[in-house]
């Protein structure tokens, strides 16, 4: 479980996030809405542990451990992982090697890449000259290898063409254990399958496309550094679409 209490975060002397309370239970996936510059990425970077995001107040607890000031790699070791929107290029490091780093062992990267249709990129330097969609597939591949318990997705749809959207969407649903429960004679009851899910997700989306693939449990709107409302993700998305962020937030307060 991820618990964020009364969080206040500063970047380069400016307060970006304040009064943030958030709780993600095992098996739950939340969707984060908000206009550009509202602090969505900052929240994800703060949870991941980027040192330039300074926590001035409040606490982040993950699996019962206070990680408010833990370095990035310790959070990764505890089971937090992130899919970035614009990750840096690592020259000379092959994507194949990066997959091994993520998995902490030698893995069959080819096998893993197949489902993401990404085999041809394994011998290319990490993110070097990748298009927006290729970056997203590379990030998902790394996350699959890392297999963390809490996954942070920063706009997984941005730059992805229609054709690849389904691939991205179903992959995220799969690694977050949000696929439709298995049917058939020998399958466990749906309720049990659902209750056995442990993966947690926090997804930033602008377009809402991801909601077509991932049945999210909760939606939240971040506006001017404050988490303004919580509710059914579809309903919130619809409200934003019709009334805009400002109005939507007003109607729920």
């Amino acid at each position, binding site marked *: 479980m991820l618990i964020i209490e009364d969080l206040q975060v500063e970047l380069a002397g400016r307060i970006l996030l304040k009064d943030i309370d958030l709780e993600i239970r095992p098996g739950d996936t939340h969707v984060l809405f908000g206009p550009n510059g509202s602090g969505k990425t900052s929240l994800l970077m703060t949870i991941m542990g980027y040192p330039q995001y300074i926590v001035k107040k409040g606490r982040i607890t993950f699996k019962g451990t206070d990680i408010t000031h833990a370095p990035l*790699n310790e959070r990764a070791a505890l089971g937090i992982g992130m899919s970035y929107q614009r990750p840096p290029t690592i020259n000379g490091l092959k994507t194949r090697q990066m997959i091994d780093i993520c998995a902490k062992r030698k893995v069959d990267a080819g096998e893993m890449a197949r489902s993401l249709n990404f085999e041809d990129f394994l011998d290319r330097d990490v993110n070097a000259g990748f298009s927006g969609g290729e970056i997203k597939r590379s990030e998902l591949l*790394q996350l699959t290898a890392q297999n963390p318990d809490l996954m942070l997705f920063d706009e997984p749809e941005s730059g992805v063409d229609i054709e690849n959207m389904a691939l991205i969407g179903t992959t995220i649903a799969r690694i977050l254990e949000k696929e439709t429960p298995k049917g058939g004679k020998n399958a466990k009851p749906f309720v049990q399958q659902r209750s056995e899910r442990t993966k947690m997700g926090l997804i930033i989306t602008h377009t809402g496309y991801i909601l077509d693939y991932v049945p999210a449990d909760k939606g939240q709107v971040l506006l001017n550094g404050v988490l303004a409302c919580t509710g059914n993700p579809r309903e919130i998305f619809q409200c934003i679409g019709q009334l805009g962020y400002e109005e939507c937030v007003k109607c729920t307060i």
Partner: protein
Amino acid sequence: MYDLKELERKARQAIDRKATFGDDVDLDSFDRSFVPHTYLAEEEICSIPQEEQQRLLMSGLDVTGTGRGGTYFQKDTSVVHCHSNEEGIEVMPVTEALKKHDWVKEYFWKLVPVDQDKYTASAFLDLHDGYVIRALPGSKSIYPIQACLYIDKENLQQNVHNLIIAEEGSELHIITGCATSPHMKRGVHVGISEFFVKKGARLSFTMIHNWAEEMSVRPRSVARVEEGGVFINNYICMKPVRSIQMYPTTHLVGDDATAMFYSVIVGTPGSHLDIGGRIYLKNRGCRAEIVQRSISNGAHIINRGHLIGEAPDIKAHLECKGLLLKGGIIDSIPQLEGHVEGVDMSHEAAVGKVAQEEINYLMSRGITEEEATSTIVRGFLSVDIKGLPVPLREEIDRAIDRSDKDAI
């Protein structure tokens, strides 16, 4: 024309001529006299001390000859081993070759001016030896010929002259190591190398330097590439050295000739490395690429790159990247010279530190800051060199791997 008298006259005139770049080395304080060493047969060469074998291996010389097409091994001033296993490839000591074969004279001092500076002059006047490696027309070798210029005697000035000839349509790969014995501290190495890549031939030349802390090194090399020829020149230097100054130059004289220079340099405190690369593109369709990667751990590194486009439809690129890890200076000086319309020339140069953003990205995948840094540095050093046979490619990777720990 091979005119010894004329060469000698020019050399004598240049004996005090300082080089354009690099610290001036007082050659008079070094010993150039001959050091006799016994010639070793193939089986004897394997019995040299383990420690020495290790030094040699670091420079690419495998005494067992495994995966090699031939060997030239010079210790101090004497040739201790020389042979070729490959049909169509000749390996000879240069002094012997000059006596035995008239054709060798056609290549001797044809590209490097004997009066360029005091080092070239000295290499002519007090030549010890060196190798001639020649691939006969149409011959192809996958296994590289290995050559090693080894210095064992303290305070020696080793003067070497190498001629490398890839005849028409041939393919030749050479891995050459320069090293000093473990006890050795101070010395000078002057190496003249002249490369002739004939029509449609491919030549790769990989040089690995493993010197001692008080060594001064002044290689002087020039290549000439004819129509459709390809010359790949790799240079790796990751060990302490006092000073190296070199500016290897290639003339692409035929249509569609190609030259690629790749260098990987790690400089330690007290080292002064002035490493250049110059390629003249003199005909249509010529291609040139220079890639330089340098890491300073407290050294003074100067990277010079100079591309000269003299014909239309040429394409040339220079990439020069430096990482300052533990102080020092990296001075990157890229230069592009276009002489006619229709040239396509570019360069990118960067000097900096390991980007924190990259370290953080890797740390978020679960590795420590130190592991992340070394992963990035290793990536920085792993240059993608095109056109090398797999065994040689692996050899270079191993050389970088072996030195990797020192770099970080």
